[in-house]
Structures are given as structure tokens and as C-alpha cells.
């Protein structure tokens, strides 16, 4: 017999907070160890405050961090890590220098020792720095031909003006001007344990892992540079910026909206409001412009949190000829979200989605490490998942409607469209004030 009715859900699964231990070392490094022994591996994340570090130098430093120490060449370092199944990478954003890696659980001590060697004694050999700098510059030149990169860069400039969040990626020419001496200086000044935190997640015993981290990294010392980024400014009142990309077969729509951080009392309601609007596939905006109209493949509205503030970002790549209609539907859905409360079933669907997504993220070592790290950067710990889950479960329809009115109002959107301006300007100008980029 064929089942024709959607089966009911079973009893909700219980949220389990994994075993965790934390210690602040004398150097000022905070260490957080979380047990998830599903596979015999360990994930490692290290975040070092890097606010206001010079952008080009910080970007090259991230690329060249593992190119050698006074004891080992880049090749020797990579080989020693590989021998225990380990590997590291580093990247940089306006708030942090982040080192991410993983290894076989049996190789954790070796991996931590090698990490210490790099942090305490990175050499930045001139030949390797030149190689990494030129590679990075070439990759930036490639990125600058990609609409996703260009559209994001234009949005950030429009939204943040003179604030440090306005530029995430340096220009290729700036990168090519960075030398090994710059990196040694920046490393000495900023790659220090004070204010940094290290997260280890995986097949470990948390208390014992803290001892192992302390044994390997306790000798890493240095003072904090103590820089901070001012809170992000409110959204400027500015017409929709049109950025020309001659010959583009699609237009890239990007809108920024205000948002609050993870600790804010309205955070859960705002997340739910954003989900109902456009934050997942089964949202009004995606169902409208993809599944009903076929204008786009992957529209998405996501919440981004930085240390200095948060924002909601809407992204969609749409066919050139439907750019204005896609913007019309976007403004309509934002306006509807801001003016009318979500239907109860829409709210329940969004609530279930985000509660499930948290459980799914916590079910892998890498996902858990990402969550613990993101929380730690905002001063939160993994038990915040329980607090957040309760806030999600209890947010009322009225609270979500209030949040939608505050954070999704189209009048507060700041945006850009990257595309073939000559073809898209007339349609967009009929909907909104527009301005061509210089």
C-alpha cells in the first residue's frame, strides 16, 4: 500500500552540548577544547585580533605564514605536518587573522608544536615571500574579473564608506609592494597571544587537550597591539548604485540591510524574519524570483556578523533582461515582510529549519569547530546554542513582525547592481533613484 500522507515528525531530538573545557593561559591566549570523537581527527582554529592591520600586508602575511621558520624551510614544515596527517591554512578579514587546520588525532601534539614554531618563529624568507606575494596578486587579478567579487566590493564601499569594513581585499599593486621586512614587522607586532583564542575540536579529552595545548603553545608570548574598529555607521541614504560591466550576460544585485549581533535580544526574531523573507530556499523571495519567475538560479539573503557590527546581505544573479522586474519583486517582498506579519506556518517552518540546521552543523567536527570559533569571536561559548535555541523556540509572531519592520524595510536598503548599465538603467530608474558609478 502506498503512503500518500506526509508522515508526522517524531519527538524533537534533544540538543546535546558537547563536553567542553576552557583555560586562559598566562600569555593571554584563551584555549577552548570540545569533544566530538566521531572520527579520529582534530580540527584546530586560531584567531588573532587583527583589527586595523594594514590590509595588503595582512593579506600577504596570511599567505606566507607557513613559508618557513628559522629551523625549517616551507617544504620541511609542510612535510612534517603532512607526516601526522596535518595541514594548515591562514586567512585574513578586517577583524581577525585566522589559522585553520586539522590532523589525525594521534598527531595532535606534533601539529601543535609546529603551529607554535610558526607563531613564535616565522621567518618569511625573501624568495618565498616574493612567490606568495606574486601568487596572491595574480589571484586578486583573477578575482577582479569575477562578478561575485566585483559586486561585493562595490556593495561594501557603498555601505561602509570610510569605515575599515569598506575594503576586504587589497589591490594587486598594493600586494606587489609588500616585502619580507614588512611581514616580519607586522608579525612581531600583531601575531601575539593576547586576545587570541585557540579552538580544538574532535577526538580529544577536553581537560587533557588544554594541557597539551599549554605544553606546546604556552611559550608563545607577546603583547597586544590593542587596536579596535569603531562600530559600523548606520546605512547611508544613497541611490541605487549602477556599476558597469560591459558585455555581462547577468546582473548582480546586492543589497545591504541593518542587522543586530548574536547577543542582541532581537537576534533570534531577526533571524526568523530574514529566513521567512529570503534566508533559505523555502523563503518568499526565492520561491518568487526563482521557482515562480525563473529570473535567477541562487538568490540568497544572509546575516553577516563582524566584531564591529552586523548586516543582512541580499545577493542574486539575474538575467540582464529581467533586472528591473527582479528588483521590483525584491522590493515587493522586502516591503511585504516589513509591513505584514508572517503567516504562522511560515514562521514554524523557519523556526524548525534553523533549529535543525544547528543540530546538523554540530554533527561534524568541522561544523562544530566553525560554530565554536564564530561564537568565541563574539565573546560567546558553545552553550549559547541552548540559549539561542530557546530564543528561537519562543519568539512570537509579533516579535518577528517587529524585527522584520526594523531590519527588512526596503527604505533602509543600500544597494548596487553590477551589469550592463546601458541595458539595465532605464528599467531600474523607473523603480528607484539610481546613480551611475564613476
Amino acid at each position, binding site marked *: 500500500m502506498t503512503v500518500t500522507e506526509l508522515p508526522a*515528525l517524531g519527538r524533537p531530538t534533544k540538543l546535546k552540548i558537547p563536553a567542553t573545557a576552557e583555560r586562559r593561559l598566562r600569555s593571554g591566549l584563551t584555549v577552548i577544547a570540545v569533544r566530538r570523537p566521531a572520527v579520529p581527527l582534530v580540527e584546530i582554529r586560531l584567531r588573532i585580533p587583527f583589527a586595523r592591520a594594514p590590509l595588503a600586508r595582512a593579506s600577504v602575511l596570511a599567505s606566507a605564514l607557513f613559508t618557513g621558520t628559522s629551523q625549517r624551510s616551507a617544504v620541511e*614544515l609542510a612535510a612534517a605536518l603532512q607526516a601526522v596527517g596535518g595541514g594548515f591554512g591562514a586567512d585574513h578579514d578586517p577583524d581577525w587573522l585566522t589559522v585553520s587546520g586539522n590532523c589525525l588525532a594521534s*598527531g595532535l601534539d606534533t601539529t601543535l608544536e609546529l603551529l607554535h614554531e610558526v607563531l613564535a618563529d616565522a621567518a618569511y624568507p625573501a624568495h618565498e615571500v616574493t612567490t606568495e606575494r606574486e601568487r596572491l596578486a595574480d589571484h586578486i587579478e*583573477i578575482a577582479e574579473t569575477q562578478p561575485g567579487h566585483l559586486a561585493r566590493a562595490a556593495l561594501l564601499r557603498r555601505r561602509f564608506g570610510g569605515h575599515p569594513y569598506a575594503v576586504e581585499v587589497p589591490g594587486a599593486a598594493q600586494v606587489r609592494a609588500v616585502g619580507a621586512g614588512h611581514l616580519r614587522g607586522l608579525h612581531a607586532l600583531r601575531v601575539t597571544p593576547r586576545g587570541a583564542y585557540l579552538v580544538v575540536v574532535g577526538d580529544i579529552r577536553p581537560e587533557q587537550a588544554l594541557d597539551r595545548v599549554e605544553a606546546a603553545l604556552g611559550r608563545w608570548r607577546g603583547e597586544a597591539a590593542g587596536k579596535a574598529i569603531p562600530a559600523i555607521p548606520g546605512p547611508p541614504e544613497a541611490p541605487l548604485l549602477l556599476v558597469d560591466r560591459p*558585455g555581462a550576460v547577468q546582473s548582480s544585485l546586492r543589497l545591504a540591510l541593518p542587522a543586530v549581533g548574536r547577543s542582541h535580544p532581537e537576534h533570534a526574531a531577526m533571524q526568523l524574519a530574514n529566513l521567512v523573507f529570503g534566508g533559505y530556499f523555502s523563503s518568499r523571495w526565492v520561491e518568487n524570483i526563482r521557482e515562480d519567475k525563473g529570473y535567477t538560479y*541562487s538568490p540568497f539573503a544572509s546575516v553577516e556578523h563582524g566584531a564591529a557590527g552586523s548586516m543582512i546581505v541580499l545577493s542574486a544573479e539575474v538575467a540582464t533582461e529581467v533586472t528591473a522586474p527582479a528588483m521590483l519583486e525584491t522590493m515587493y517582498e522586502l516591503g511585504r515582510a516589513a509591513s505584514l506579519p508572517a503567516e504562522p506556518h511560515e514562521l514554524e517552518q523557519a523556526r524548525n529549519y534553523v533549529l*535543525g540546521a544547528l543540530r546538523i552543523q554540530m554533527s561534524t*567536527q568541522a561544523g562544530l569547530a566553525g560554530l565554536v570559533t564564530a561564537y568565541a569571536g563574539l565573546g560567546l561559548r558553545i552553550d549559547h546554542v541552548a540559549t539561542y535555541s530557546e530564543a528561537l523556540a519562543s519568539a512570537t509572531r509579533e516579535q518577528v513582525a517587529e524585527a522584520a519592520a526594523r531590519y527588512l524595510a526596503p527604505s533602509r536598503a543600500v544597494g548596487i547592481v553590477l551589469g550592463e548599465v546601458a541595458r539595465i538603467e532605464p528599467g531600474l530608474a523607473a523603480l528607484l533613484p539610481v546613480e551611475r558609478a564613476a
Partner: protein
Amino acid sequence: MKTVKVPVTRYPAERFTLDNGLRVVLSPDRSAPVVGVAVVYDVGIRSEPEGRTGFAHLFEHLMFQGSANLEKLAHFRHVQGSGGSFNGSTHLDYTDYFEIMPSNALERALFLEADRMRGPALTEENLRNQVDVVKEEIRVNVLNRPYGGFPWLKLPPVMFETFPNAHDGYGSFVDLESATVDDAAEFFHRYYACGNAVLTVSGDFDVAACTALVERHFGSVEARPAPERPDFDEPDLTAERRAAYTDALAPLPMIAAGWRVPDPVADLAAYLPYVVLAEVLTDGDASRLVRRLVQDDRSATQVGAYLGFMGDPFDARNPTALLMQAGLPPGGSTDAVLTAADEELDRVATGGVPADELARVSARMCTHLLRDTDSVLQRSLRMAVLEQQRGAPELLNALPGLVSEVTAEQVSAAAATLRPQRRAVVEAMPGGAR
């Protein structure tokens, strides 16, 4: 140098076949309250008919547009409204559909997959809407960006002669627009038979209870046997082939070379040395080609070697290839890169691979293998394909050990086969435009 013991996973793999021919693999793991459900159909890009390029992928989209008891959009809403995530993807040799859910939604996921296995809602309206969506997908991923489809769409037509192996799997707009509802119905009837599918569930469930649920939802799906799968084999190359094209959006040259490798399914033992070789060549800063091309010669800014056109060594059937892809600096020379790569392959072939180098490469491969299947969903997908192509889902547990048993002599012998006259090369030349 310190080396480590290869760790072992013991994921269970309970296999059975329903009366209608559906093959099922269950792999319980109670460590987190989530389940991964995958349904894999044994049809992919290589099976689409001439004049219908891109059809396998277009059809994948149509499987999300409703079915007998699910209206349009219901699939997405039910999965996400239960706390889960979904997707599907089209490969050369198979098409997969999958959900990861909190474990209290397991039965829902099974219901959703069974309903569309009985038949998706193939309507003119759904077809036209999804042709539009797929065209936007192709614009995002291929037409509106530099290096679109490189090399997975660009190298096969250089390397292969026959339509199944050589054609563009994303499809031409003309072919996509020509697709009809009748084409879709025929494609479904032929290839989406339950005898041509594998269902895998991994994660937080009881095997007996899950078996009963699988029977309840899939037991009544109409029995249709799997179509005979053609042999897509082609003769190996005997002379180098090269092609170049101008990528108007690309600022720098990029090249890819491919060499045929042994049949991954029929002769895994002969195939695995190539998988290890690819890592010896390009995994990390201590690898042979990264050292030579990127650090020493600076003739490339990035280089990667991998098995399979879509980058997964353990889901490809014959004919398949080892690919090497390199991004060149301004004014970079394709010949310089290929010549240096040939020299490095010669060094592996004649000079061998020291024991410590091989040990460290396989240690890192172990980490990758274990990490890739830490997610219940990835485990389900991997096991489903191993069941479909090999009848051996438990091979998942054996792969780290098999990789670490590959010998230096086998890696050298593999390198010795990667000669210039057996390779196909494609170059994307920068068009310079922004």
C-alpha cells in the same frame, strides 16, 4: 620523521534489496541526532541522448517540482520545515538526490524520496520554469565568469571522440529549449527505474525500525528493471592532442592536461596508485609539482592534480582520467609548465618515491578521507555510489588502509604511463577584457 598509524573507521553497512529491485544500504551511527538520506540513480551526463545535451541535469531539476502527493515547492518546504537541507547533483555516471535531517524527520525524508521515485510532476509549466533556472545556473557558473567550466567541460571534447564522453554536460541553450515533457517522461521511465537506484540511510536510527520504514515507503514502488548500461570505453590516445580557446573574461592563462587511467571499478588495485600519485604531485607545499612549478620555477601560480573530471576519485567509471590543472602567471608558458611536469613525472618514474614521502602523503590522504565522510550525508552519498558501482559500500572503511598499502613501485609505474603522447591538453587563453 614521525609517522602515524592509519586509523580505521567501522561504519556498518547493512545491505538488502526490496522485491521491486531497489537496493538499500543502512549505516547506523548514533553519535549525533541527524540522518543522511541519499537516493542515487544510475544515469548521468554520459547517458543523455544526442540533441539533448544537458538533459540529465535539467531532469534533476524536474525531480524537485512535485510528484503524486507533493505539489510544487512542497519538497523544499517539507525538508526545510523539518529542520533539514536538501540538494541533488548530476555527475557523469549518476545523479544523486539527498537530504540531511534531524533524526525525528527520517520517515518524512523516506516518504519524499519514495513519492518522486514513483514519478515527478512533469508539466510544461515546470519544464519551462526550470529551463530558465538552468540557463541562469549556466550563466553564473560558465558564461558570466572567467574559466567557466574549466576544465570539466573543456577537456573532454579534446580527449574523447564519442558523444557520451565528449559532449557538454551542462548543455547548449538550444538543446535545453528543445526539451519536451515527452522526453522527460521517457527519460524517467527508462533510467529512474527503482532497479536502477540505490537508497542509503546513515545516522541516528535503529536498523530494524528503519528497515520497516523503507519497506513501508518504497515497497510499493513499481518494479522496473535497470536498463542495460552501455560500455562507454574508447581507445586511449596515441598522439598528444591540444586545443586552445580564448576566454574573453580571463586575465591570465590556465591549462589542463589529462591522461587516461585504469578502470576504477574493474581494477581498483591498478587505479589506486594514480590516486596516490596525484597527491604526491600536488598535495601541499611539500609536493613535487608545487615545489617545482610554483616555488622554484614560478612557472605556475597554482597547480592541482586529481582523478575524475568532476574531482572525485571514487565515483567515476571508465573511461576516466588523471587531470593536472595549472594557473599561469602573466606571460606564462604552457610548454614550460608541461615540460617541467614531464620532468617531475620522470623523476617519480625512474627515481622512485622515498618511503617517508609516501608515508606522509598517505597520512594526509587518510585525514582527507575520514574528514570527508564525517558528515552522515557525505557518508550516505559515498556508500550509495560504492553500492551502485561496486556492490561494496563497506569499501568506505577500507579506503584509508588500501591507500596506505600502495607501494612506491606502484606509484612510479603509474607515473611512467603519463607520457606526453597519451595526454590531452586544453588551454584557456586570456582575452584580456574585464
